[in-house]
């Protein structure tokens, strides 16, 4: 498909407006990530926030892309999940 209808999630997210919070509002317990086999957060997140870095054995959290849907919160008990601070985060304008 054309550039006007991007296929990659990063390009889709690029169209969105965010007021990025200075602090990360998604805090997984990394010690639990080490033992986690399923890594469901990396699958169900609609904004590809979570990526498991195999070399560093660490879950990277690109919280600035978060759409605040809460899917990871429901899928995993080990993420300390909060909303971004007042007025921060994603701003849907056409949805």
């Amino acid at each position, binding site marked *: 498909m054309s550039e006007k209808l991007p296929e990659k999630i990063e390009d889709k997210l690029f169209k969105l407006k965010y007021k990025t919070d200075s602090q990360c509002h998604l805090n997984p317990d990394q010690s639990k990530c080490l033992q986690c086999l399923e890594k469901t957060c990396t699958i*169900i997140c609609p904004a590809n926030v979570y990526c498991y870095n195999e070399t560093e054995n660490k879950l990277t959290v690109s919280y600035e892309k978060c759409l605040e849907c809460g899917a990871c919160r429901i899928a995993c008990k080990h993420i300390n999940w909060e909303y971004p601070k007042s007025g921060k985060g994603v701003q*849907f304008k056409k949805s």
Partner: protein
Amino acid sequence: MLQENQQNKTDVIVVGAGPAGVSAAVTVARGSKNVVLVERGNFAGAKNMYGGVIYSHAAQEVFPNYKESPIERFVSTHSYVIMSENDSTTVSYKNPAHKENAFIITRANWDKWCVEQAINEGVYYAPNTLVKELIVKEGKVIGIRTDVEEYYADVVIIADGVNSLLAKQIGLRKDIKLKNVFMGVKEVIKLPSEVIDQRFGLINQTGCAMELVGGPLKDLFAMGIIYTNKDSVAVGLGVSLEDLKNNKTKPYELLEKMKKHPFVADLIQDGELLEYSAHLIPEGGYNCLPKLYTDGAMVTGDAAMLVNNVHFEGTNFAMISGKYAGETALEALAKNDFSQNILCLYKKKLDNSFILKDLRTYKNVVKTLTERTNSIGYYSNKLNEFLEIFTTADGVEKKGKFQKFAKHFFTKRSLAELFKDGFAAVKVMFDILK
């Protein structure tokens, strides 16, 4: 904790300025009581997306002047699209008498308009305000704690959406299971208005609401949507979180697959992505309803998981439940009693309305359908196969083709499965009609 005083106390606080919250707040203001409507986004709608429509009956009940609101298009056509890998069958319903039953909006515009109406009617609106927690004293909700301050009220109406951390905090809601939540992902794609009219067969700026099953969605419990705005088209899908997990499917990749199906691709060709969004949908139905009230608080809309997933109804449940909560708050203020003894009236109102009556009717339907997920793909394929034979003229006699089709119908799916499908269909009908 600060002490409650004249400056930081109001009659009612509503948390969340979506359809439920704004309906609750405006109802309280119309009863000449003080109400503060709190929203964490920096404008109403900033955090909201939907895959649906606004139903006129609910809009009319809360905002009788709703026809002045920023409506994209009234829905004139409902289409159901049954897809196979490349082909599809569409059933469309049009009824001139129903042309104003529902309308399509974009949330940032419409939610903002609703809040403006509410402000004009006396609601005090506080955007950019995240409620961190409810203030509870001796088991009774008495206010909210935000990033910066504490604020007190006789009644707090919780309308903070599907995740409702507040209802969870006070124990009204338990943790939700993956299978009871759907992920909604959606792309709004820009197209010229006249191109939309032409592709969807619409005239006079009327709109189309389309639901899609099968084909690229067949392996998961998922349903696609396509709705027409004035000069853009919303293409999205709702899919069970549990199925995403089990199938290791990313929601945006599933949407990408759906967009590539020829039926969808033709509709959005040459369009331009305006916005991608995602939101959860509470789909647990009646069996997952939380406790709807406690001393000093009531839960409304998505926060109360009030959604009829079979009929794509949620915005109307939100608005009417908000209105009922507002009415109940007024009743409590009149009697100066904010305990469950009075707030249970909210539940009674819901019980007597279409909201809980419908949710009760459908309480087992989704469970039955979920268990038969794989049948949707099977029958979608069979329907399209049949119509392919029916519509193809190729100089080959028809009898052999139909015989092969009939044979495959009973051999490609085991008799036990076919029997279970039939049983499920009867069960669904029985559940609705009993």
